[in-house]
């Protein structure tokens, strides 16, 4: 798309002016690259990233029930990497090695929906990513320097751990995690009388300490909690709730004509914690958040069964999507305190409720005062102006009928869930690219059988009109993503591990026996392992620890044990270990699975399990 030659010319012009003979992107000031490389006039961004060129954004995609996180280059939409999180990855050994098992604690399956980065002053600080597991009710933290999970916190008392959002200001100290399914609290045999009484099921808004990865507290509610958001002042977290009815069937959940946007007052939460106003359930401090029993939660009525909640980059508005209502509800955050103080009614925080189309689910922002909302039923993305929507609301019904706020409508293929614009969840929303994460991709790709890919569509939003630029298939099933300007991440990501960060790093290969327990320590340095053979006896509990000593960046080795269902990969200076019972006598070759050298095939050693 677009005239790339023009770009190249511009690009080299800059290089020439700087007097550099062989230009590399790294030599140029970030802003220069950013401003010149892809902008082709208003609304004409080029998606092309030629061989050898780099993308402008790191895209972090949740992998849905694949349990992983994916790293996608934007705008090329090339999948650059996968970060295993709540899954077993037989390629990298996640879920197989002792290190990963210690984090997964026996549950190597999951359902990731939302990935968000840690913040400083409303912009990503490049330190962490946080991701939920709706299946097993936990939250993982990914350290961006190694792009790997370093902590997982299990969250008791909740189910359907769905909406997740980190604190944006002044920095991410807390992360909130919502429970979408109401359950008895506690949900165990001690409370069995509640099993058949949905009135005794509760939702929870969980607050997690981002650094310690420990639960700070939970706020207990009658309502369920769907999507989550935090403001830009460090004062509130928010959620939508679609089941204030405490229904357990679809009909019951659809019964009420309204539901809520819930606001949580962090100052009051801290106060309640300090005052000891909580009870402990499964070791977690549970605060009372139910209506009439607590001053922590503000309930703003919105049309029934809302879905997404997103905060405008200027920090002024929360936008709740109507889902079964063809409207979005715009809440002015400056009014929240007035409502908490009882000076206005909660519903008076609403400043507009414009029509957007059928099935609004999520909203994102271009940083120029416009919002873009995904419409599931209409199969469109609609761009609308926030100020115009508020103005029309003030003018009244007749003005609203004209829908003066709607700027453009774009058909997508086919059923959109989340949408996200570049940097849209930060103060620095830049209005360049939008990704529409669509379900159902009939016709868009070669047929690969009954289970077809999802369809992520890339849309240029730099102009007035939304312009569809590219389709990319996604294996089941990303839900949400963020796209982070590369300069915020690039310098934080490392090429190699610190060898001695791992307490078991091996510098000298050898076999050590303590009774029935055998430890095999081994270096790897392509194309040889530190040992040519290791002998154990049938029935021994064997721990194999391998450290990659290769000096060359990107030279990883694999370690596969024939017939023992074990494989993992070690990057330069990385150490991984596995423990297994040597229950099969015989000669078992341990071999390198990750191509490493001209003699890669010869990189193997014998594990001899003696009778």
């Amino acid at each position, binding site marked *: 798309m677009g005239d790339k030659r023009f770009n190249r010319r511009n690009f080299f012009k800059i290089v020439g002016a700087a007097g550099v003979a062989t230009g590399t992107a790294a030599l140029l000031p970030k802003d220069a690259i950013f401003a010149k490389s892809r902008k082709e006039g208003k609304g004409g961004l080029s998606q092309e990233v030629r061989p050898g060129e780099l993308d402008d954004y790191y895209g972090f995609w949740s992998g849905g029930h694949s349990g992983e996180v994916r790293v996608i280059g934007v705008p090329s939409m090339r999948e650059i990497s996968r970060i295993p999180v709540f899954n077993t990855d037989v390629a990298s050994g996640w879920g197989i090695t002792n290190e990963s098992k210690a984090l997964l604690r026996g549950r190597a399956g999951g359902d990731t929906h939302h990935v968000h980065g840690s913040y400083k002053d409303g912009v990503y600080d490049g330190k962490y990513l946080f991701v939920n597991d709706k299946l097993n009710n936990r939250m993982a933290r990914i350290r961006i320097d190694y792009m790997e999970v370093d902590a997982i916190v299990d969250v008791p008392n909740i189910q359907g751990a769905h909406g997740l959002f980190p604190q944006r200001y002044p920095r991410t100290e807390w992360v909130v995690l919502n429970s979408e399914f109401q359950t008895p609290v506690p949900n165990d045999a001690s409370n069995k009388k509640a099993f058949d009484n949905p009135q005794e099921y509760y939702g929870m808004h969980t607050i997690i300490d981002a650094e310690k990865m420990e639960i700070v507290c939970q706020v207990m509610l009658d309502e369920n909690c769907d999507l989550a958001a935090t403001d830009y002042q460090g004062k509130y977290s928010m959620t939508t709730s679609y089941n204030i009815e405490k229904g357990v069937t679809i009909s019951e959940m659809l019964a009420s004509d309204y539901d809520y946007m819930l606001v949580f007052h962090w100052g009051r939460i801290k106060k309640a914690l300090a005052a000891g106003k909580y009870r402990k359930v499964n070791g977690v401090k549970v605060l009372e958040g139910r209506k009439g029993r607590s001053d922590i939660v503000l309930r703003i009525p919105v049309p029934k069964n809302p879905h997404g909640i997103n905060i405008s980059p200027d920090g002024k508005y929360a936008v709740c999507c109507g889902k079964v209502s*063809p409207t979005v509800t715009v809440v002015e955050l400056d009014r929240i305190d007035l409502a908490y103080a009882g000076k206005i009614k909660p519903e008076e925080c609403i400043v507009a409720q414009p029509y957007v189309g059928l099935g609004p689910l999520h909203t994102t922002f271009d940083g120029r005062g416009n919002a873009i909302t995904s419409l599931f039923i*209409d199969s469109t993305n609609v761009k609308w102006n926030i100020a115009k929507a508020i103005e029309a609301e003030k003018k009244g019904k007749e003005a609203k009928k004209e829908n003066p706020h*709607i700027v453009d*409508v774009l058909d997508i293929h*086919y059923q959109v869930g989340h949408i996200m614009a570049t940097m849209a969840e930060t103060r620095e929303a830049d209005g360049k690219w939008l990704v529409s994460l669509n379900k*159902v991709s009939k*016709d868009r790709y070669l047929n690969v059988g009954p289970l077809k890919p999802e369809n992520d569509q890339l849309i240029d939003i730099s102009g007035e009109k939304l312009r569809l630029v590219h389709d990319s298939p996604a294996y089941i099933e990303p839900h949400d993503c963020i796209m982070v300007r590369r300069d915020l991440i690039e310098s934080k990501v490392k090429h190699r591990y610190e060898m001695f960060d791992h307490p078991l790093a091996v510098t000298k290969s050898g076999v050590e026996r303590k009774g029935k327990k055998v430890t095999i320590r081994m270096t790897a340095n392509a194309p040889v392992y530190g040992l040519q053979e290791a002998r154990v006896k049938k029935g021994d509990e064997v721990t194999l620890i391998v450290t990659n000593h290769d000096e060359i960046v990107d030279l990883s080795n694999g370690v596969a044990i024939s017939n023992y269902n074990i494989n993992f990969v070690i990057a330069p200076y990385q150490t991984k270990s596995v423990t297994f019972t040597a229950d099969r006598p015989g000669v078992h070759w341990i071999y390198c699975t990750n191509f490493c050298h001209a003699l890669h095939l010869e990189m193997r050693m014998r594990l001899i399990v003696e009778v």
Partner: protein
Amino acid sequence: MSKCFVLLILFVNLYGATLEAGQWKFAEHRYKYKLEDVLEADRFVEKDRYWEAYKNQDLAGYVCLSKDWTRNLVGYSGKHMETLIGMNTEGVITGVKLIFHSEPIVLIGLKDANYLKFLKQYPGKNIRKDMTVGKEISVDAITGATVTAVVQNAIVQKTAREVALRTGLMNVSKRLGRTVRQEFTPLTWKELVETSAVRNIVVPAEELGIEGPEDFLNLYFGPATIPSIGRNLLGDQVFEETLGKLAKGESAIVIFSNGNGSFKGSGFARGGIFDRFNIEQENRVYIFRDKDYRILTDIKAEGAPAIKEGGVFIVRGGDFDPARPFKFNLILSYRVQTKKEFRSFKVEYKLPDRFLE
């Protein structure tokens, strides 16, 4: 035999243990009905899958239940929308009553009242005349639910016409008996167009009052199973594979287009039904489902243009005859600024003589 039917329907329990996995129970609506709800009469006589209605001993018309005639027409929910239909002896619809549906219109912010309002358009319409969604039948009452509208329209139209044929109210001419020439003649794109083997519908953007330099839609269609048409358009492989998918007496049509507009739309993606086009022959309506469709990405005829969208669509049922004239209905959806609009087009297709024996 004089008796007044009062059919009592068991109400489905919307709540609790009767919920079945995967059913649209939450969207289900079932209504009680009496035959006189759709046709005023003092006596109904049950016939084979319809009733004769009498008023003062005179035949006043007919009443029928759609599920007896068009059960295979299913909506977005995958279920048939059971409809009670009445018409007088002139073929004028006297009443239409929805008895059961589970279309999830609640999800698009619509109430059942909207659906019932949609159906209020039918009384007074003569079944001999055109009843096309977007033309004679407006979708305004249930905007957004075009799959529901198109299928519901087909149900009313086809059921009423089938009953009219049965009662002799309408006649269907027997197949003309002309046979399609099986001999294959290679034809270029130019020849296919000039001989009217494929028909063309051009919708200029200007005509719709929308921006865009090119034609909003430039669409071609033709019968895919006529050797000198289908084989030239589709190439040997797709042509033969298409024939291989047909049951005895079945046929297929090929449709393709260029322009910003789309004849496929997106309704089929989730609803399984193509809601922007259908064909009619001898008062029968044929709507197309995704399972009877194959994507077409290029036209093989020499000199054919590149296409943006295309498909081969099987006409199921075995009562469609490509050798006889048929009508192609296009219900085009587009936006003027940000407002959604519909425009319908009806084009007749007549197989040129050179393709017949």
